[in-house]
C-alpha cells in the first residue's frame, strides 16, 4: 500500500506537469467532441488522431489517446439525450430514457446525471485499475471463446428485459438484428454472406450506421411527419439541475453500473459495448417501478452511462498489466506505444513506472477535467433545443451523414444509415421498439465467432461449455434468470410487463 502511494505520488508529479496536463486536457476536449458528433466514436477518433501523436513522447501520446477514449464516453450521452442520436455505440441505451427525459423538460437533469455518473464511474474504476490490475488481468485472460460465449448468452437474455410491452415484438426485433449481424465474411471459412458483390459489405453492417439510422434519422422523420411541430423546449435555468429525488434514484444505479462496467470491460474483446445494455437490463430488473423505463426513468440514464465509462478503465487492465491488446481501442494504443519504442508486455509496469503511474494519475485528473468541462456545458447544450426545428433537424441530418461517412470513409455506410432510418421510421409507426435490433447487430458476430471458435477448440464437443468453470457458472446464472422469468407463467400472476401490455391495449381501445 505504501508503495502504491509512493508510486501514485510519482504518477501525479508526472500527470500534473504542465505538458502532460495540456495533452490530457486536449485529449479530453477532442474526446468530448468525438463523442458529441453522431457516428464518430472513440475508435474512429483515436485512429484519426494517432498519426498526430507520432511526434510526441510515449507518455504524452498515451495520456492524450486515453483522454479521447474516456472523453468520448462523456460526450456520447449528449446527443443521445437531446436528440435521440447515439454519439457512439455504447450510448444507445441512453437514447431511450435520456431522450424521454428531455421530452419532459428534464434534459438538463439527464445531462447532469450522466456527467456525474461518468465521473464517479471513471474515478472509482481507476482506483480498481490501480490496485487490482495485475491479478484482474490474469483472470481476464482466462476468458477464452467458451467463456466469452457464455457471457454473450447472458447478454442475449438481457434482450428480453430491454423492451417495454410485448415480449414477442421485442424478440422479433432482436431476431432481425441478429440476422442483419450475419451479413459479411464468415470469419471461420472465408465465405461472403449476403454481400451481393459489394466488397464493403464483407465487413458486415456496422453498429454505428444502424444505431444512428434507427434512432436519429427515424426520430427526425417521425417529427417531420407530425401534423403540428412539437413545441420548442425552453428549459428554465433552475430546471437544469436534477431534483433531490432524481439524485436518490440514480445513486445505486451509478454504483452498480460502475462495478458492472469495470468487470465487463476487463474481458478481452468488444464486450464494453454490451456493458451499457447489461446495466440497463439490471436496473430495470431491480427497479421497483420497471414500467417507468422507456418513459424517462433516471436510472436508465445513470446506470448505462456509468457502466460505459468504467468499462473503458476496465479495458486498460489487460493492456497495461500484460501488454495484451484486449480490444480494438487498446490495440491502437499499444501500436502507439510501439511507435514510441515502448514494448508493451508483462514487464511494462516495472520497466516503465513513469508511463504507467503517470497514465493512472492522468486519468484521475482527466475525469475531473471532464466533469468541470461537462457540467457548465449542460447549460450550453440544452440551448440547442431552443433552435427551431426547420433549422435544427436538417443540420442534424447533415452531421449524421458526415459522422457516419467519417468513420470508414465509406459511402456504403451512409446508404446503410439512410436505409435504417427509413426502416426505423416504419417500425416506429407500427409500434416496434428498435433498441433490440441494435443489440442484435452488436451481438450476432461476436456470439457466432465465440461459439464456432469454442467448437473448433473442442473439435465439435459441446461439453466444452460445461467443463470450463467460468463458462459453466455464467451459463448457470443464465439458467436461473430464465427460471425466474418463467415463474409468473407458473404462478399465473401478472408481472409488470403483462400489466403494461394490458394498459397499452386499453389505450388503443380508447
Amino acid at each position: 500500500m505504501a508503495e502504491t502511494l509512493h508510486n501514485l505520488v510519482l504518477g501525479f508529479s508526472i500527470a500534473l506537469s504542465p505538458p502532460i496536463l495540456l495533452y490530457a486536457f486536449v485529449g479530453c476536449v477532442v474526446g468530448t467532441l468525438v463523442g458529441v458528433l453522431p457516428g464518430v466514436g472513440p475508435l474512429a477518433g483515436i485512429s484519426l488522431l494517432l498519426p498526430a501523436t507520432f511526434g510526441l513522447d510515449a507518455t504524452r501520446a498515451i495520456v492524450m489517446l486515453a483522454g479521447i477514449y474516456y472523453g468520448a464516453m462523456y460526450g456520447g450521452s449528449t446527443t443521445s439525450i437531446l436528440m435521440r442520436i447515439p454519439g457512439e455505440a455504447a450510448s444507445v441505451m441512453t437514447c431511450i430514457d435520456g431522450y424521454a427525459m428531455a421530452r419532459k423538460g428534464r434534459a438538463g437533469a439527464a445531462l447532469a446525471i450522466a456527467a456525474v455518473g461518468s465521473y464517479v464511474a471513471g474515478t472509482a474504476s481507476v482506483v480498481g485499475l490501480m490496485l487490482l490490475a495485475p491479478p484482474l488481468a490474469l483472470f481476464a485472460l482466462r476468458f477464452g471463446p467458451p467463456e466469452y460465449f457464455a457471457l454473450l448468452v447472458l447478454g442475449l437474455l438481457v434482450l428480453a428485459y430491454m423492451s417495454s410491452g410485448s415480449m414477442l415484438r421485442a424478440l422479433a426485433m432482436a431476431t432481425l438484428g441478429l440476422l442483419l449481424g450475419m451479413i459479411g465474411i464468415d470469419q471461420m471459412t472465408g465465405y461472403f454472406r449476403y454481400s451481393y458483390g459489394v466488397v464493403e459489405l464483407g465487413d458486415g453492417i456496422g453498429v454505428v450506421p444502424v444505431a444512428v439510422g434507427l434512432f436519429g434519422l427515424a426520430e427526425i422523420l417521425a417529427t417531420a411527419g407530425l401534423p403540428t411541430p412539437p413545441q420548442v423546449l425552453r428549459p428554465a435555468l433552475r430546471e437544469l439541475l436534477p431534483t433531490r429525488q432524481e439524485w436518490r434514484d440514480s445513486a445505486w444505479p451509478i454504483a452498480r453500473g460502475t462495478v458492472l462496467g469495470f468487470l465487463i470491460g476487463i474481458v478481452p474483446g468488444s464486450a464494453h459495448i454490451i456493458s451499457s445494455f447489461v446495466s440497463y437490463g439490471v436496473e430495470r430488473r431491480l427497479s421497483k417501478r420497471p414500467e417507468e423505463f422507456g418513459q424517462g426513468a433516471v436510472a436508465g440514464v445513470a446506470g448505462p452511462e456509468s457502466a460505459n465509462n468504467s468499462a473503458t478503465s476496465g479495458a486498460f487492465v489487460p493492456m497495461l498489466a500484460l501488454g495484451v491488446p484486449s480490444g480494438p481501442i487498446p490495440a491502437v494504443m499499444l501500436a502507439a506505444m510501439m511507435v514510441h519504442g515502448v514494448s508493451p508486455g508483462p514487464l511494462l509496469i516495472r520497466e516503465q513506472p513513469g508511463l504507467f503511474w503517470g497514465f493512472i494519475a492522468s486519468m484521475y485528473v482527466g475525469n475531473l477535467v471532464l466533469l468541470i468541462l461537462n457540467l457548465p456545458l449542460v447549460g450550453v447544450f440544452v440551448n440547442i433545443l431552443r433552435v427551431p426545428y426547420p433549422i435544427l433537424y436538417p443540420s442534424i441530418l447533415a452531421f449524421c451523414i458526415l459522422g457516419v461517412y467519417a468513420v470508414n470513409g465509406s459511402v456504403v455506410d451512409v446508404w446503410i444509415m439512410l436505409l435504417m432510418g427509413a426502416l426505423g421510421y416504419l417500425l416506429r409507426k407500427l409500434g416496434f421498439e428498435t433498441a433490440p435490433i441494435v443489440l442484435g447487430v452488436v451481438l450476432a458476430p461476436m456470439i457466432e465467432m465465440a461459439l464456432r471458435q469454442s467448437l473448433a477448440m473442442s473439435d465439435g464437443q459441446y461439453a466444452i461449455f460445461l467443463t470450463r468453470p467460468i463458462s459453466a457458472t455464467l451459463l448457470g446464472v443464465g439458467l436461473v434468470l430464465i427460471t425466474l422469468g418463467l415463474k409468473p407463467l407458473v404462478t399465473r400472476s401478472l408481472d409488470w410487463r403483462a400489466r403494461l401490455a394490458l394498459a397499452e391495449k386499453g389505450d388503443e381501445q380508447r
Partner: protein
Amino acid sequence: MNRSRAFWLVVIAGLAAVAPVLAQEPYPSRPITIVAPFPPGGVADLTARPVAAAMEKVLKNPVGVVNKTGAAGAVGMQFVATSKPDGYTLLLALSSISIIPEADKLFGRPPAFTVDQFAPIALISADPTILVVPANKPWKTAADFIEDAKNRPGQISYSSSGVYGTLHMAMELLSHAASIKLRHVPYAGAGPALTAILGGHVDALASGPAVVLPHIKAGKLRALAGWGDKRVAALPDVPTFKELGYPDAEFYIWAGVFAPRGTPEPVLAKLRETLRVAVGEGDFKGAMDKLETPIVFKQGAEFAAFFEADARRLAEGVRKVGRIESK
C-alpha cells in the same frame, strides 16, 4: 451577356491549351497519396507513415497516407488497382495482396482485384514469422513439437489472425512441409490471436517477432523456430525451419510499395530511386528500429522475383487449404 460568354470561351480555350503542358510537368508536381489498406496502428499503417515522411523529404513534395480499410484490405487494394496510373496514388501492401485474389478464385467469385493490376516498386521490410508456444507446454524444440503433432494429428491447436490470413498461411505452409495436421482456431486479427495464446486457449501461434518478444523475455512464451531465410537477430538461438530440414516452410510478413499497372516507366524509375534514398534516411531507420522491424530493401527485378516467389507459395498454400467446409 455576349461578353461573358466570350470570356468563358477564352477561359476554356486557355485551359485546353495549358492542359498538355501541365501533363508534361515534371513528376511529382502535386501531393502523392499512399493508401494503407488497413486501419491506423497496423503493420501497413506503421510502415506507410515513416515511408511517406522519408519520401516527402527526398522528393520535397507532400506525400500523405490515407487509410482505406475494409474486407481484410480488399477495399483499399481495389481502390488503388482501379485508380489513375499517374504515380500520385500508391499502395502500401502486405503479403495479403497475393492471398485475396487466390481466395476469390477458390470461392469462384469475381475477384476484387488481381495481382497483375499492380506494378511492384520496392520492398520495404520483410519479417519472418516465428513459432511460439506457451512456456508451460512440454515442447522445448521444434522437433518435439512436430513429433508430438505427428503422434496426435489434429489435437494441437493454434490461433491465427483469420482464415486465409497471413498467420494462418504461415502455419499451413509448415503443416504441409512437415506433413502434420494441426487444429486451426481463427481469430479476428493478430491481436486477439496473441491474447488467445497468452490465455492458454490455444497451443501455438505463428507471429511476427516484434509483438511476441516482450512475452518471450517475460517467460510467458517460448520460441521454437522461425520461417525466415536467416535467424531473427533478436533471437539468435532460435533456428529456422530451413536449418531443420523444412525448406518449404518459408514465410515473411512483408511490406512493399506498389503503383497501379500502366504507370509510366520514368515515374516508376523516379519512385524506385526515391524509395532507395528514403530507406537510408536516419529518421526512417529510427522509426523502423522502434518497431523492431528489419528494413529489407529490394527493387526492380529483385523485388519482382521475391514477390512472384512469395505469391506462388501463398497461392499454393491457399489451394492446399482449399475451401473450408463448415463443421
